[in-house]
């Protein structure tokens, strides 16, 4: 039974750890499916985390915090659009720039406004998103097997967790069942086809980036207002890049993205759980090995050794009208 409880606990923390990855990964999916590479997921998440925690603690409202996280993250997404869509700049360079501006400005502004070494004040109840207990969770807690799964694993998460997982079918629906999704996928594959069909390539790509901004904003808010009770500098710690890896791993598909993020979240959860203790058969696995595994897997995938990850065809190339 202990093993079972341990598994439930690992899976529970898998869910918690994969949520920011999932939100950021879906964010990247919108922009890359529209043909705009975005290695600035990390920076936009960080901006969202800071703006969210700062606004929540100043206005004493979790929802205002979330709103501000989204607004600021979208603003950074628009800068990326301005550079890479309007001015046809290098999308990678622009993404790198955004990551730096985000990393620096969150610390500088945090220190200037709150004087706590780049942190925002610890969020009070009501300023952060609390866990939601699903109906009947305590009632069936003691039922074997189902009890722990329902009350530990499924119940007791914040609204943003449920939102993140709800975003998976929603994103699938948007991409594959709506007019916006059809056009968005088209512009990532062949912008000239979209242009000759009388649709503005630039405006479509801007809208995709706005979606990206909204989701990275929520991802950031989750980090600072759910997982942590406030903003800590550099709190994204490379999650934006893991999300990018997950996106490639998922071959730019929403449901795959969920599984990729759960896998990477699980590796993280297991690494924390196993710290030091040996695994049966394998023996002691260094934590760092588990941490590096998402990146190693992505490189192997990219090299075409396990399937082939084919990015949207027009990705990374600014659209220039040609004869």
């Amino acid at each position, binding site marked *: 039974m202990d093993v079972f409880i341990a598994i439930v606990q690992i899976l529970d923390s898998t869910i918690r750890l994969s949520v920011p990855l999932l939100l950021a990964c879906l964010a990247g999916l919108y922009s890359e499916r529209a043909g705009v590479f975005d290695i600035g997921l990390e920076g936009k998440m960080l901006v969202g985390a800071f703006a969210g925690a700062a606004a929540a603690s100043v206005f004493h409202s979790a929802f205002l915090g979330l709103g501000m996280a989204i607004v600021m993250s979208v603003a950074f997404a628009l800068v990326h659009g301005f550079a890479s869509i309007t001015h046809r700049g290098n999308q990678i360079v622009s993404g790198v720039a955004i990551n730096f501006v985000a990393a620096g400005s969150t610390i500088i502004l945090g220190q200037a406004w709150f004087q706590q070494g780049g942190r925002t004040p610890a969020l009070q109840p009501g300023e952060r998103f609390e866990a939601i207990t699903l109906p009947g969770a305590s009632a069936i807690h003691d039922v074997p097997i189902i009890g722990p799964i329902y009350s530990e694993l499924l119940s007791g998460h914040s609204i943003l967790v449920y939102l993140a997982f709800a975003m998976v079918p929603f994103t699938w629906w948007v991409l594959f069942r709506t*007019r916006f999704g059809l056009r968005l996928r088209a512009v990532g594959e062949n912008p000239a086809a979209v242009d000759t069909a009388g649709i503005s390539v630039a405006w479509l790509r801007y809208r995709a980036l706005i979606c990206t901004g909204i989701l990275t904003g929520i991802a950031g808010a989750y980090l600072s207002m759910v997982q942590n009770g406030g903003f800590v500098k550099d709190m994204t710690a490379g999650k934006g890049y893991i999300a990018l890896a997950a996106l490639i791993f998922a071959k730019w598909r929403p449901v795959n993205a969920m599984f990729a993020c759960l896998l990477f979240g699980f590796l993280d959860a297991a690494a924390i759980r196993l710290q030091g203790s040996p695994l049966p058969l394998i023996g002691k696995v260094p934590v760092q090995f588990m941490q590096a595994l998402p990146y190693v897997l992505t490189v192997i995938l990219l090299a075409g050794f396990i399937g082939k990850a084919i990015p949207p065809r027009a990705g990374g190339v600014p659209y220039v009208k040609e004869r």
Partner: protein
Amino acid sequence: MAQAAIELIGINKSFGAVRANRDINLEIARGTIHGIVGENGAGKSTLMSILYGFYQADSGEIRVGGKPASIKTSNDAIALGIGMVHQHFMLVDNFTVLENIILGAESDALLKKSIAKARSELERLEREYGLEVDPDAIIEELPVGLQQRVEILKALYRGAEILILDEPTGVLTPAEADHLFRILKQLKEQGKTVVLITHKLREIMAITDNVSVMRQGTMVATRETAKTTVGELAELMVGRRVLLRVEKGEAEAGAVKLAVKNLTVKDSRGVTMVDDISFDIKAGEIVGIAGVAGNGQSELLEAISGIRRAVSGSVMLDGKPIDLTGAADPGELRDRGLAHVPEDRHHVGLVLAFEENENSILGYHDDPRYLKGPFLNIDAIMADAKDKIEKYDIRPGNPRLKTANFSGGNQQKIVLAREMEQDPGVLIVGQPTRGVDVGAIEFIHKRLIAMRDQGKAVLVVSVELDEIRSLSDRILVMFAGRIVGERGPEATEGELGLLMAGVERQEAAE
């Protein structure tokens, strides 16, 4: 007299210094198939892009159905009932046929109604025009002919009354092309207007009612198809440019330098571009390959020069084979005395961001003359560049100037100077004077003849018929990847034009 579907009045369009369209007037009658012919770069595509709202004319007026129309975007054109099938299909390859057809013309945000409507529309169009295609097939899994059909359906679905097709048969097999023509005739019978842009005269004669000829950005003539001949059109297309004929003596052909046997080359899409070609070039002669662009000349040049792999056949240089598997190293071929002036000097023959002197060694940068150990011998390179500048009268005469800042003619001289001064046994030249000013043309031609007189074997590929006739000792005509005829330099323009148009000898005799 049918009412005009489209009138173009005084259309002008320039790209930088290039005037792509000059004062174009054109009237297209409703319910007809109207052909527009002209050589590559004559301005046909530009004109149609203006009509489709992809470009804006600098001046001039467009009337659709008798009313002045302002076409600023493709949307405006679509709203006016103009549809276009582009030369390079504007399709999303991993979408289904249905998705491609509704893209941009979806009536509802959730697509349910759009998809239902598109399905029933497709069925109707299929019935009316025989345009069968599986609506749920993925585009990239369809053969090219069917992809093109989807493009036509896209236009019809948007209610196009006027359909423009830009070089529609370039990618089709003859059978597919015949099918396309049947469809176009059917469209005409239903009252649609079709504009067919092509450089293939046979197609024009086969299905158009009227034909307009463009040359160098101007509209030179419009004829009723029934009252003209292929010969007349060919002459109008090529025109009688005033070109000084370069004086040259009789060729004194020597031993075979380059022998091409049964060469077959495919392009990246797997389409056969060079189809079982054989010919040879002897020392001291210029062999010209005439043909309309896109008939396999580019691929032929690339295969011989080691840039593109060949599927089968052989090429012998001085009696020894060239490796055609793609492992052939252009550098090695240079060492063996094969010099190549490529067609695309902007992206292949030169690095425009380089200084002139740097481009003067491109491809020969391995030559010990230009090196001191691993280092470039700057003094030698500069002296060499200055020497070539003088010999070839390259202006401005500054070897440190960025190549992009030279004019087209001088850029071409940089390439020619580099390749000719290596004293190669075989020189192959693609489009020797494309985009080159008149003064430089004569200079380049004289140089090529001087090479011949020194006993080099020279292969010239050009879409300029005049140039081929003026330079060549023997003329080979390429059409659809094959050599369809060999003529002497005395061959007439009309005769060659017919061969270039793919007209068989019997037809030509009619």
